[in-house]
């Protein structure tokens, strides 16, 4: 028999986002909504062990939180002596159907990832409110002090309140841009887990799983948005390689050297199905769907030699149109190097030499090093590997690059 405490923890973890979302629609302030949800949790922790567990613990928590919200609205309205406002904001007493709660969650998604917030504050707030992580868990995942995370979350909530960001799902023209901001948050979280920008470990799988969780929530809440499925497909396909991405010594293993038996076939199936869904919804393929299509080509190849590099290079060409960034251009160079030979790849990579955005990006010299090595220009390759190693802040990545340099004949 689990302790009441464990039971409450379970219920709250499952229910927290929905409670915050539902209350936020009432009080129109995510900070206040979260406080109220926490209050309901504390009340449960006090009462359940004494009075016994309610028949429907989730509904109990929701009702308690909603009642507190109503109290608060009444108090504020009385202070403001504005009964019109009160009538407007007081929700019906009926416990909301699941459908309306899901609408509330979707509203919460768009508020939490609002472009008015700095990206890192959006990320922290999303993990807190949508992922249900504690401040300590977020801090641990990002290897930053807990106070920093707390500050980011506080700042984000304050900004939302100050800018009076409405609690709504954007419609019409505004929607694509807002959705892009939502997807970006999920992708940022995943990427920080998939290729950690700092610290000793290359991977922080917990963050990848948090991003997957958010992606799955979004896909279920917005089933008609192709790019949401495209993003989820991309994340699942990339995550399928998590187990193979590092060796026993936690050094990174490049794609063509990975043990494909360690790829998670189950995630690959889900990713391929998600990609099909994204493509089936029609329209112009967005950047995430295109990247998922590229990841799918790798996932389909049983051995590195089976990889359809021509198709991947073509997909990168299309992606470059949708997402004209130097990093995409660099990836296209890698694909060209495989499809048409190292000289073609090197030409494409060298064309990027002047890109300011790539000046401190270790992958540029890393890619050049690999292509130079394949062209037999060993001394230049070694220098480039060493240059790349000096540029990365990640310890395991640096080691891997240096060992590539040592491997050269």
């Amino acid at each position, binding site marked *: 028999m689990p302790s009441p405490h464990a039971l409450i923890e*379970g219920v709250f*973890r*499952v229910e927290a*986002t929905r409670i915050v979302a539902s209350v936020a629609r009432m009080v129109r302030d995510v900070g206040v909504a979260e406080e109220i949800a926490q209050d309901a949790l504390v009340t449960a922790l006090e009462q359940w062990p004494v009075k016994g567990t309610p028949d429907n613990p*989730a509904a109990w928590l929701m009702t308690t939180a909603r009642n507190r919200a109503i109290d608060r609205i009444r108090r504020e309205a009385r202070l403001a002596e504005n009964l019109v406002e009160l009538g407007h904001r007081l929700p019906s007493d009926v416990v909301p159907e*699941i459908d309306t709660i899901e609408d509330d969650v979707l509203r919460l998604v768009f508020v939490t990832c609002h472009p008015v917030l700095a990206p890192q504050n959006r990320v922290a707030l999303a993990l807190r409110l949508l992922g249900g992580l504690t401040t300590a868990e977020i801090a641990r995942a990002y290897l930053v002090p807990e106070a920093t995370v707390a500050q980011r979350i506080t700042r984000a909530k304050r900004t939302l309140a100050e800018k009076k960001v409405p609690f709504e799902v954007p419609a019409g023209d505004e929607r694509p841009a807002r959705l892009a901001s939502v997807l970006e948050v999920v992708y940022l979280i995943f990427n920080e887990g998939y290729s950690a920008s700092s610290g000793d470990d290359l991977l922080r799988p917990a963050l990848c*799983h948090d991003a997957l969780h958010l992606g799955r929530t979004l896909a*279920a809440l917005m089933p008609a948005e192709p790019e949401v499925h495209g993003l989820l497909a991309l994340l699942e396909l990339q995550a399928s390689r998590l187990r193979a991405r590092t060796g026993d010594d936690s050094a990174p293993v490049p794609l063509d050297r990975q043990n494909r038996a360690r790829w998670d076939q189950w995630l690959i199936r889900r990713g391929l199905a998600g990609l099909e869904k994204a493509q089936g919804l029609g329209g112009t393929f967005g950047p995430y769907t295109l990247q998922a299509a590229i990841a799918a080509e790798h996932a389909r190849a049983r051995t590195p030699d089976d990889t359809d590099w021509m198709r991947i290079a073509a997909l990168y060409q299309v992606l470059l149109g949708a997402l004209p960034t130097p990093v995409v251009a660099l990836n296209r160079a890698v694909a060209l190097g495989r499809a048409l030979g190292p000289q073609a790849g090197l030409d494409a990579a060298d064309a990027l030499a002047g890109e300011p955005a790539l000046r401190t990006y270790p992958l540029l010299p890393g890619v050049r090093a690999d292509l130079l090595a394949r062209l037999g220009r060993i001394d230049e390759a070694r220098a480039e590997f060493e240059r790349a190693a000096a540029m990365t802040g990640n310890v395991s990545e640096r080691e891997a690059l240096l060992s590539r340099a040592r491997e050269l004949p």
Partner: protein
Amino acid sequence: MRYLILLKAAENQLGGTPPPELFAEIAKLGEEATKAGVLLDTAGLTPSAAGTRVSLEDGKISVTDGPFTEAKETIVSYAMYELRSQEEAVEWTRRFLQVHVDFWPGWEGSSEIRRVMGPEDFGAAFAPE
């Protein structure tokens, strides 16, 4: 972390088929869990009469066709969730059984929650953090 949740029951509980409302409620719960981003896969299993058991005993492999009448309970469905804690798995499972309480009075069975082992279970090299 992935959790496999197995539902076990006596086959042909109460000698009848489950009420249709139960399926509707289970579907609703499934939708809820999907929208929460945690349900990855779920399905019911055909009765053990259509199953086969392959066992190894005394170094000998034998194949037996179902039904497996000697077993008191048999696995009737499974669900795969991705969750952060065992407590969350308990809560989703509790909800699943609550639906049975509400829509199939008299039904008895049990669910078993088992975490799927991941790389984190195989040594420090694959530690999640």
